[in-house]
Structures are given as C-alpha cells and as structure tokens.
C-alpha cells in the first residue's frame, strides 16, 4: 500500500512540475476546399487588421473558391507560433514580425521568384535575405525609429530636438525638462527595457567590434559602455518613477499627455499615443554615438508575411501575398510606417516631418536592429532583463554585461 502511495505521489508531483516541458508532433492541415489559414499577428482592433479584413473580402470576391481564414493574434503571439511550429501545425501564412530569416526561414517557402520580390527596399536586404539571395516574406512596412520625443514638452523647456547631437547634449536636454510632472525618459521596464538597449547599443560599437560579434566573439567593453550610459541616466533620475510597473499603454499615455520628454520603443507607440491624444506633437530624432560615427536611426522588418513550406495550397497563398503587395501603400499607411516596397507610396501623416527631416534632408543612416544581426536568435529576453537589472540597480553594468555574454555564448553554441 505504501509503495502504491509513494508511486502515486511521485507520478503526481512529476506530472505537475514537468507537464509543460515537452513537445508534441501531430501534424496536418485541414484538408478539403481551398482555405488559407492566415495568422496576422495583429490585435483585433489594430488599424492594420481593419484594413486586412477589407482586403480579404476583396480578394475572396475575385478568387471564387478561395477562403482566407483571417486570425487575430493572442497576447503571446511569438510563443504561440513557436508551439505551432514545434507541433507541425503552422498556419499557411503568418506574420514574421522581424524574424523571417533568422527564426522562421526553415519553415517558409522562398519567395524571391515572386513579382514583388525585386521591389523590396534595399535596407531590408541585410536582415531579410540570406547569402543565396532568398527572401521568405513580403514586408508590407518597415519599422524605422530613433529617439521618440514630445515636441511640446521640449519646447516648453527651451530644448531644440534638432540640436541634440551627442549624449552630452541629451543630458543637458534631460536636465532641462526634468520636473515633478515630466520624466526625461519614460520607459516601461517589463515591456520595453530591451528596446532602449537595442537602439542605443549600435552607437557604442564600431565596425571592428561589429565584425567581432559576427565572428562569434562578444565585445564586452562596447556593450558595457552602453549599459554605463543607461546607469548614468538612472543615477541622474531621468527615468519615470513607475518604471517597474509601467506598461506599453502607460508609455503611450505619458507621451501623449506630456509627462514624457523622450522614450525608446517601436513606431507603434506613436499610434497608441495619438489614440490617447490626437493633438500630441510627437516626433523622432537620430540616436547619438560614442564612437565618432554619425548619428543614426534603427530600422528593419516590421510587418511581413511568409508562406509555410508545408502548405497544401502554395499557389493560392502566393496569389494572396501578391495581392497584398499590390495594396502595400494602404497597408503601410494603416501602420503609420514607411512601406516595405519601392513601388508603394509613403503616407505617414503626422510623422511625415520627422521622416523628411532625417531621411530626405539629412540622409541619416538607418542601421539594422542590433539583436537581429549581431546577437544569436533568442537573445532578446536577456537583453531586456540585463538592461532592467542596471536601471533598477539590481546589478552593475559589468555584471549585466557578463550575463549578456553568457547568453551570447550559450545561444551561439546551441545554434552551431
């Protein structure tokens, strides 16, 4: 009796603790008529989702017998996609959100023979095409961003955003705006501490450092220099007091309501902020460097759609993707971002002045997101947490950098 109890106890404890650590392998897409499962990656109320519903209706009307099963994303899109890939139940088409090459290419059809493939803008080549020139997704827009600011807050403090050319200039501006009601840098620790690091870090690495990173050697001094900057901002009281609990919505609201001077994050924050206050006077500026290199913006793949290499209906899926390419102007405008194809027209609304200033007049270089090129796939979480460690004073830049190096080494080892 005792042994039965013991075995039962062991089995119960074991299953309760380990039930989540397994992978399954059941495959197979639903058969039957031509139905394309399309995992959009958009929230139900996204502007892009609203437009996509209209486009799907239009496509279905002109392609009788083809149904596009349009699916909105849950709260944890990336994890959901990983589980579906592991289980062999990938959708026919899905949003690759920046990872069409590094993460998803082994599951996607190469699409360089598609009519739109030669129209993909050149700046995406580094992160979306492999050495053989293959491309695995249609980029409907690109994410270009820099240091986001509220122009009215800066103006009230006498700060000219176009005059911030170095980190010393930035510190002067931060000191000028810092008050009980305005945080110089408003950042949400849980969602976007890593976004800060991912944007600033390109300015502390010179070309030799970057080459070393690509060769497999983590350049500790350059990474630590970035975290030193972050620590200095924390010591100077630049971060918002609710940094630990602030959500992405809190960031957007603070930006919209003039409680934030600067912040780091995706261009999606602009749309979110304008939903709180349509009159908010917002813009972005290039990020200073410490290496003597010119200021830069960061950018890369944002919304992009790839086709599963296991799809039973590749022709219909390709036709739908080609249809989306024809409508890229509208898709990009719905996301307030530049289009991913040279054939589309840029309609950026309130962000147009910032783009014209930095992209057209100043021709500021657009660098790829650091983690997508120089860090192994899977490093984002560590980048996020190690930055948080420094901002919250849980560790020093040296300790956080050591942790980041450990992640870099282990993930590179895992992928080799």
């Amino acid at each position, binding site marked *: 009796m005792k042994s039965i109890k013991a075995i039962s106890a062991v089995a119960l404890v074991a299953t309760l603790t380990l039930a989540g650590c397994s992978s399954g392998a059941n495959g197979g897409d639903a058969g039957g008529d031509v139905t394309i499962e399309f995992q959009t990656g958009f929230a139900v109320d996204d502007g892009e989702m609203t437009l996509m519903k209209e486009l799907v209706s239009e496509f279905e009307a002109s392609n009788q017998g083809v149904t596009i099963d349009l699916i909105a994303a849950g709260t944890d899109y990336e994890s959901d996609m990983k589980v579906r890939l592991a289980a062999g139940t990938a959708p026919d088409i899905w949003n690759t959100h920046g990872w069409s090459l590094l993460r998803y290419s082994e599951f996607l059809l190469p699409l360089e023979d598609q009519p739109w493939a030669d129209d993909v803008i050149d700046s995406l080549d580094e992160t979306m095409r492999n050495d053989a020139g293959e491309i695995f997704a249609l980029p409907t827009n690109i994410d270009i961003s820099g240091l986001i600011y509220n122009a009215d807050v800066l103006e009230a403090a006498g700060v000219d955003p176009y005059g911030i050319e170095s980190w010393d200039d930035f510190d002067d501006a931060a000191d000028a705006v810092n008050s009980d009601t305005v945080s110089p840098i408003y950042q949400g620790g849980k969602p976007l501490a890593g976004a800060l690091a991912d944007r600033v870090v390109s300015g502390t690495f010179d070309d030799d450092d970057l080459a070393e990173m690509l060769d497999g050697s983590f350049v500790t001094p350059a990474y630590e220099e970035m975290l030193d900057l972050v620590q200095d901002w924390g010591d100077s009281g630049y971060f918002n007091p609710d940094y630990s*609990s602030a959500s992405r919505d809190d960031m957007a609201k603070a930006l919209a309501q003039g409680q934030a001077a600067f912040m780091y994050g995706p261009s999606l924050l602009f749309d979110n902020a304008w939903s709180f206050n349509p009159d908010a006077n917002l813009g972005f500026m290039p990020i200073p460097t410490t290496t003597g290199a010119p200021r830069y913006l960061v950018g890369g793949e944002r919304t992009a759609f790839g086709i599963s290499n296991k799809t039973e209906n590749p022709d219909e899926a390709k036709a739908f993707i080609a249809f989306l390419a024809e409508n890229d102007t509208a898709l990009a405008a719905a996301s307030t971002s530049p289009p991913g194809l040279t054939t589309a027209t840029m309609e950026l609304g309130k962000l147009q002045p910032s783009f014209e200033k930095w992209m057209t007049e100043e021709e500021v270089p657009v660098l790829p997101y650091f983690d997508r090129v120089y860090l192994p796939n899977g490093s984002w979480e560590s980048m996020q947490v190690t930055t948080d460690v420094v901002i919250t004073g849980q560790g020093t830049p040296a300790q956080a950098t050591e942790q980041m190096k450990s992640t870099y080494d282990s993930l590179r080892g895992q992928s080799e």
Partner: protein
Amino acid sequence: MTTAPLKPSRGLRRSATRGGGYVNLLYLPALVLFAVFMIYPLISGIGLAFTNWNGYSEARSFVGFDNFARLFSDPVFATAVRNTFIFGIGCTIIQQVFGLGLAIALDKPLRGRSTVRAIVYLPVLVSPIIMGTMYYLLLQYNDGAFNDVVVAFGGERMAWLADSSMAIAIIVAVNSLQFMGISMIIYLAGLQSIPEMYYDAASLDGATTWQQFRYVTVPLLQPAFATSIVLNLIGGLKLFDVIKILTNGGPGYSTQSVSTLISTTYFDSQSAGYASAMGVALFAIIIVITIIMNKVLGSRKVEA
C-alpha cells in the same frame, strides 16, 4: 480475552473479487488520460533535458548532461531556486497560521460562521491570473489604490514592485491570502473529526484551553497538518501565475521562481533543453521535500 479475526465467507470473497475487477475497468479511462496527458509529457520532458533543442526547430542534438552541469554555474537559476524556497516555505507558514486560526475560530457555534467560511474560501475559486491582475492594479504607481491611500495620509507614492525584497513579500502575501481558505477547510474537517469526549475528559482532568489545544487538538490534527502542509508547499514551490502578472520575474531576475524561469528560458530565450533540465531539477527538489515531509509528518500521526 482474545478474539479470532473474522474471515469473510467464500461468497463475500468472490463478490469482492468481482467488484475489484469492475472497479479496475472504471478507472481505466482516467488512467489512460493520465498517461497520455501527464506521464507521456513527463517522459518527453526528461528526454528534452538531454538536448540543445530551441523549442520549435526540427533540429536538435544530444548534449548529454551539459544542461544539468550548466544549472550549477548559473546565478540566475540559483536566484530562482532561492526564491522558490522562499515562496514555498513562506506561503506554507502563512497559510497554516491563518488557516488553522480561522478554522478554530469558525469551528465554534458563531452566528454567520457559514458566511465567513464562504468569504474566506471564495478567493480560491478565482483564477490566480485574475487575482494577480487585481493586486497589480491596486499596486500601480499611478491610479493604484494603495498609493491613493498613502497620499491621503500625507505620504508619497511608492513603486511597490520596484524593490525585489518588497516584491517577493507581496507575492508571498497575495498567494497566501488567496489560498488560505484551502487550509481552513482541511483544518475544519480535521477539527470536526476529533471526538468531543477527549475534550470532556481533558476538562475533567483540569486541562486549560491551551493545554487542550496543545495535547488534544494538535496531535489529533496531524493528518490534517500533513495534507495541508504538503499541498501548500507544493503549490508554493510551483508558484507561477502571480509572479508572471505582478513582476514577470523582475526587477531583473530577482523575483523569478524556477517555474517562471522555465517558461522564460523555454519560450523567450529559446533554450527548451535547458528549461527542461530546470524542470527535472524542480521535480527532484519537490520529490525530495515531499518524501521528507511525509516521513516527518506521518511519524507523528495519532489515531483518534
């Protein structure tokens, strides 16, 4: 006087045998479901711990015990293990103290005791995700009720979850307050199974209330202690939802439990093999503690 043990008649034995076979058939479906959804994932998870799988790719290699060796040099895992013990032991102690206290108070014939029992137990029925979200909203820096109270009394707003020690204490408190109802129910059942005659006899011998509690109630509650402590300990050691909602393991890694670290390592850091090794380690930790607790608590069992 000695009495010979009663032997069942042949007819009774046949009936019991047939009944046993029937019962076996009844639990077979449950056993199959248990094997498919629990045992298979368990074995599969242990197998993954010996690979370098990233969690989604078709490629994976056997790496032997590398993942287990890494556990011993990983400061983040060490922090998570330390926190896991704090969550497990802290929640267990608080739930026993409050659960037993409430059970004793509500075992007495008070007016409205059924209502109070229901109120104490109701949070158990709420999903920990929802409970965590409610507390998260209360603890927010801006618009959080706790800070509104602080400001109303002339204080300054606090970032309640910014300090790791404070955040850990809050997590323990939230989880303990939600689930103390389970301990209360277990202790109530235990108290109601103690025959009144023991207390009568103790009173006649002149025992005080404290002496009755110490020498009658506590020994006869040993089975309830064993059940409640082991259940609460396992719950605390596996704590996940509340941490995910309140701190997501932060600031930094400072409030990670092994369970939340497994989730982060598996999905976000894309190291499913290493995450599985953490799962095996947590499994071993809980097994050892459960066996020890069963031994310790079982040895003190007293028959009523």
